[in-house]
């Protein structure tokens, strides 16, 4: 399937575009998406390890998470004051 991923901040500037459209295999995982990003935009490859993928406005839990068709995808570089997942206080 074809998927579009939104790019922000340092990722957007490195790629030179605000979004990328990539070809993904069937039942693609976050790992597949990252590999496709690295192929289509080599400038992003060096920073991919620190980029988190958001699927429908939620951080993907890990690289094995399957991406549903039609999901809104985004590359989230480390945010300005942190980057680690926070504990759920409940």
């Amino acid at each position, binding site marked *: 399937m074809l998927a579009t991923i*939104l790019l*922000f*901040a*340092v990722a*957007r*500037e490195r790629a030179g575009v605000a979004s990328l459209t990539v070809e993904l295999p069937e039942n693609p995982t976050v790992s597949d998406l990252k590999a496709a990003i690295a192929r289509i935009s080599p400038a992003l490859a*060096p*920073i991919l390890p*620190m980029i988190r993928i*958001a699927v429908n*406005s*939620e*951080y993907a839990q890990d690289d094995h998470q399957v991406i549903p068709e039609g999901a*809104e995808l*985004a590359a*989230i*570089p*480390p*945010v*300005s*004051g*942190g*980057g*680690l*997942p*926070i504990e*759920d*206080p*409940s």
Partner: protein
Amino acid sequence: MIEIRLEPIDHAAITDQVRSNQAGAVCSFLGTVREMTGDRQTLALDYEAYPVMARKTLEDLEIQARKRWPILGLAMVHRVGHLELGEISVVVAVSCPHRREAFEACQWLVDSLKEVVPIWKKEVWADGTEEWVQPGRPASPDVQSERPRLE
């Protein structure tokens, strides 16, 4: 109240909004643009957000905070775009029956916001360079770029 806005933030109005007769404590935090980071001088900051997700993560933080503390009123407002020295980038205001819980909730919200909400800031340094701020990597040449290259 949750908002991401381009225009300046009226922190007094936001603080007023969370007040209530049930509250004995109102805690309001302002994040402002600082000039000096060590010996480096900042001219301005440019903030960029992923608005849909930023709003959603702020709403999630409000839900979590309300489970943990007896919050009466809560407001989180973040500014995006170009900010000059001293301007307010973020306001978090909380009211609770007692001061301890208001302090705790406000601090947790500010700390959490900075960790998970997809809003990025770029330093515009006085030496003419620009740099996306990254936690734990305050001055990496890997992410440095000259202003003319930027959109």
